[in-house]
C-alpha cells in the first residue's frame, strides 16, 4: 500500500485554533481522527503508546513557533499473531 499523506497550511487565529485542538482532543478520546482531502480520507487510530514531542521557539525578532508531534505505530501493542509468521529462513 502506498503511503497516505495529508497536508494543510493556513492562517488562523487563536479562536479557530482552539476549535481545531478541541476536535483533535475528541479524536484522541475516541481513538479515531479522520482527515479529508478532496474526497480522499485518511483515518488515523491513535491508541496505545504514542510518541509525543513538543518544540517551542521564540526568536529575538518576535517570530515564534510551537510544534507538536505525535507519532505512533498502529500495529504496535501486541500485534503478535502467533502461528502466522511468514518468514522462513534456513539456518
Amino acid at each position, binding site marked *: 500500500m502506498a503511503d497516505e499523506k495529508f497536508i494543510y497550511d493556513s492562517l488562523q487565529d487563536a479562536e479557530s485554533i482552539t476549535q481545531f485542538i478541541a476536535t483533535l482532543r475528541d479524536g484522541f478520546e475516541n481513538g479515531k481522527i479522520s482527515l479529508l482531502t478532496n474526497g480522499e480520507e485518511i483515518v488515523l487510530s491513535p491508541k496505545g503508546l504514542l510518541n509525543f514531542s513538543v518544540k517551542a521557539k521564540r526568536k529575538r525578532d518576535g517570530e515564534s513557533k510551537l510544534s507538536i508531534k505525535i507519532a505512533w505505530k498502529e500495529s504496535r501493542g501486541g500485534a503478535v499473531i502467533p502461528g502466522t509468521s511468514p518468514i*522462513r529462513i534456513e539456518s
Partner: protein
Amino acid sequence: MYTFEGIDENFKFIVMDVDAQARTARAFIESPEAGLYRKIASRDDYIDNLKTIIENKCYARINGDKTLDPAQLNKIRAIQVICVNLERIADFLVNIVRQMGFMEDQAFIHRYLWRDSFDVIQESLGHILDGFRKENMSKALSICKAENVLDKLYKESFDRIMLELKSGQNIQDLVTTLFIFRYFERIGDSILNIGEAIIFAIIGERIKIEQFEALQRTLSKSGFSESVAEIDFKAIWGTRSGCRIGRVGRHDSEANPASDRQSSIYKEGSLEKIRQEKANIERWKSLFPGLVADVFGFHEDEEEGKGAMLVEFLQGCTLDEVVLTSEEEFMRNALFVLEQTVRHTWTATLRPGTFATGYMSQLRKRLDGVLRMHPEFWRLPQALGRAVVRSTEDLLAECEAVEQDIPAPFTVFVHGDFNINNIVYNHETQQVHYIDLYRSKDYDYLQDAATFLVSNFRMPIFEPALRGRINLSIAIFHDFVKSFAAERGDATYEARLALALSRAFYTSTRFELNHRFAKEMFHRSAYLMEKIVDHKDAGDWEAFRLPENILYL
C-alpha cells in the same frame, strides 16, 4: 596457506633481506670495514623500495579484490604490518652501524653483551617466514617473547653504563654504546608487532601476548595440552562485559568431529570476576548438573589481578539465533524447553521471605555509562502549562521509595545476566544451557525475567517479519512469567516488573548507537517510571497494571 601472486614472493625477499642486513651489521660491529658499510647502505635503499612495493600491492589487493574471504584479508593486513616493521628494523640496523662511527675506540662495545641482542634479533627474524606461512603459533609466540629479552638486555646495559659514566671516563663511547642498545630495544618493539601480526593472521583476532601466556598456563594446568602450538585457537566472540572469549579445540577436531566435544571456551578477565563466575558455575553445577558448562582449568594471576578459565564449550546455538533464524516450530520448541528449565530452577531454589530489590540502584550504577553515550537521556524538570514533566532524578527518587514498599515475596537463584544470547539451546539433546554466570545470585526472579524480555526487545531488528518473531518470543516468555507469578501468589509482581523493565530499558541504551532506537528505549523506561509514580497516591500496589504493550515494538 593462501597464496597471493607477487606479494608472497616480495614478502619472502624482504624477510630475507632484513635478515641479511642483521648479519652484515653484526659483522660490521665485529670489525668495521668501509665495504660492509656500503653494502648496508645500499641494501637499506632496496629494503625501503621493497616495502613500498609490498604496501602498494597489499592495498591494491584489499581494495580491488572483492572475493577475498576474511582469513585472506587478515593475512594481507598482517603482511603489510610485518613489512612496515621489518623496514623499521632495517633502519635501526643502519643507525646502529652509523653509531659505530662515533666511537673513539671501536672495540669498546665488546665489553657489553651486544652479541646477545643480535642473537635474539636474528633468531626472531628467522622464525617469521615459517611462523607466518605454516601458521605456527609457537614460532609466533617466540617472536613476541624476543621483545622482553631485548628489554632486559637494554636495562642491564643501561644500568651498567650509568654507573660507569660516574667515573668520568670514556664518556663518548659510553653514550654511543647506550644509543646502540637503545636501538636494540626499539628493534624489540618492532619484533613484537611482527609476532602479534602473525598471531592475528593465524587466529583472526587481535590479542595481546600476555593473554596468550595466561592461556598457556591455564591449558597446561588443565592437562589439555602442553603446547599452545597443538591447539587451534579460534576466537569466536568478545563480550561486552570486558571478558575475552575464544574457543579452543584440538587441531585434529576437524578431521574427527567427535572430538569436538572436548572443545572449550577460554575466558580471561579481572580476577574478581573470573573467581565469582567459577564459584557460581560450581553452585549451578551442584544444583542442576547439565545446565552449565564444566570448568576444565583455572588460573589466577594475583599480581596482575587477572584470572583465566577454560570452560566446556556447549554445543548448540544461542537463543537469539534460534529466534531469528530457525523455523517457527523449532523456535517454539526452544522457548518451551527454556520455560520448563526456568520454572524448574526457580521452583527448586525458591526461598520464601521478603527481599528488598535494587532495580533503581542498578539503574543509577549505569547512569554514567548511559549518559556518556546519550547525554540527553537525563531530563530536567519541565512544565507545559499546567502539565508538569518530572525530571529523571525525580522519577528515580520516587521509584526508589516505591521499591522499598514492594519487596519481592521470595528469592530464587537467578542467572543475573539473563540475556537471550546467554542461553544456549541444543536441539539434539532438547536442553538449554546458561552461560556467562558471574552475576548469579539469590534475587527476585523478575530480575531475570525483565532482562530476558528487554534483551529480546533491544535486538536492533526492524524488518516486520523478524520483529514479529521477536514479539512472539517476548509474548511466550511474558505469559510464562505471569503464570509463575500467579501460581506463587505474587501479588505485586506487575509493579516490580515495571521497575525491573524500566531499569533494563534504560541501561540497554548504553550499547545502542542507533539514536532513534535508543530514544525509544529511554522513553519506555521513563514511561514505566511515570506510571509507577502516578499510581503512588493510590498506594495499592496489587492493583497496579503493567502496560503490556511496553514490551513490544
